[in-house]
């Protein structure tokens, strides 16, 4: 089973996306052999009241709930996120995707930790993209910087039991996640969209340092085309069992999915 942990629906304000409806995403997934995808609403990044986007997302994916797994986008600095979080659970959300730079907070702010811990209690995963787009091509109204690796490290130290999934990131093979024994034991996973199988070989290095249970396939569709991320696993020098874990086994365990 191939599970893409890094998919989105909706409009990006700064360039047109294709395949950004539920039907479109399914088309793209079918074309690339992707069975299921974790999806959040891009609108949740930009609406002041992200909960509206979460409700839109649930309506949009209703015909495809067997393939699309909804993650909520919430801003812990916005009023009464606690009630929104409960409503998201009632709507069938399975985790959170956080955008601290766009929502103007840091992951270790008190309200953020409060949100993360509440979601963790319910067994949710917390996905955090290091970036949404390459900042070298961002629109002049897009002020986002990357989430620093040190913020990832800091929040995992604060919440070692939380199953974080870090998306669109690089540099993990040189970070405390592979050097610090306490961090290595924490419950985090790393999406491979910007990692490499050849030349800099960040995927093999992370497999050596962390074992096969920490890497997950995630492409960034529909911002990105999925083939590059799939190709990284295809050409990886690793056993079939390891590859199957990255394709979807690790994500299935994390999300409690049946194949």
């Amino acid at each position, binding site marked *: 089973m191939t599970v893409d942990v890094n998919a989105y629906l909706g409009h990006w304000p700064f360039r047109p996306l294709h395949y950004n409806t539920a039907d479109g995403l399914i088309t793209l997934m079918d074309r690339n052999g992707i069975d299921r995808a974790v999806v959040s609403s891009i609108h949740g990044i930009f609406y002041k009241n992200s909960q509206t986007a979460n409700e839109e997302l649930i309506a949009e994916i209703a015909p495809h709930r067997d393939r699309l797994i909804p993650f909520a986008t919430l801003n812990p600095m916005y009023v009464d996120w606690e009630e929104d979080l409960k409503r998201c659970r009632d709507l069938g959300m399975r985790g959170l995707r956080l955008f601290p730079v766009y929502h103007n907070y840091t992951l270790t702010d008190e309200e953020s930790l409060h949100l993360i811990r509440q979601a963790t209690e319910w067994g949710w995963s917390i996905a955090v993209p290091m970036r949404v787009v*390459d900042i070298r091509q961002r629109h002049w109204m897009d002020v986002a910087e990357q989430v620093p690796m040190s913020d990832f490290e800091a929040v995992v130290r604060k919440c070692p039991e939380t199953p974080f999934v870090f998306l669109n990131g690089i540099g993990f093979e040189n970070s405390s996640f592979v050097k610090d024994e306490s961090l290595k034991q924490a419950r985090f996973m790393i999406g491979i969209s910007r990692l490499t199988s050849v*030349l800099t070989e960040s995927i093999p290095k992370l497999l050596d340092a962390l074992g096969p249970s920490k890497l997950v396939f995630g492409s960034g569709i529909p911002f990105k085309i999925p083939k*590059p991320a799939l190709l990284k696993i295809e050409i990886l020098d690793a056993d079939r069992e390891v590859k199957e874990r990255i394709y979807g086994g690790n994500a299935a365990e994390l999300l409690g999915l049946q194949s």
Partner: protein
Amino acid sequence: MKIDCHMHVQGNRSPWRMSDNDKIIEAADKLGIDKMCCSIPLTTPAPTPDEVRDCNDDVLDAMKQYPDRILGYCFLNPGYYREAIGEMKRCIGGEGMIGVKLYHQYFYSEPAVYPVVEQAIELNVPILGHAGHPTDAETRASQPRISDGVHFAQLAEKYPEAILIQAHIGGGGDWEWSIKALRRSPSVYLDTSGSVVDEGMIELAVRELGAERLLFGTDMTMEGGVGKILGANLTEEQRERIFHKNMSEILERR
């Protein structure tokens, strides 16, 4: 068949920021890349002729190590134009390199570049130019003379017979800008390399420029470079054109 029009090798004299050349070949084998057109450019503002020569000697060594796999571009600093012309004659005329590599020492529309372009026309070889339209302040500050499609278009207007390749549409800048800037410059090719694998990028380039003006490249993002062409909405004929036919035709013009 795949010919990577934009790749680099590691040098002993002027180390490039990547793994060794054996690993490059190993990676190319995994991805089905048959040949790689490689250079070692310097990113400093004014590399000296000796520094430039060291880079090119390293590329020549790699060409000799892997004669069936590695083709070489001759890196130049056009500011030393006499030495640059001499280096072209040595590396292209004498040693069989296939073209010129320019970096961001000058905008390509600046007269300092003209002698190199004229020599490339005489040799009938392409010029691959580092390029991009970065929109963030940090990248712009670090590369104040990086050229984009506008500079290529100006150069192509002056020298329509030159074989110009604008580097890495996926190099991180505004690729919509880069594509649009080349619409009225039919002699300029665009290479598809770089780490950006945005959905719709290759399709827009094909729609606006035509598949016959696109050249497959990786610029060290090897899985992304191959994957973005394999995964794009293209006909098989378009894919073949981009993967190798267009570059083969350029190489045959020498």
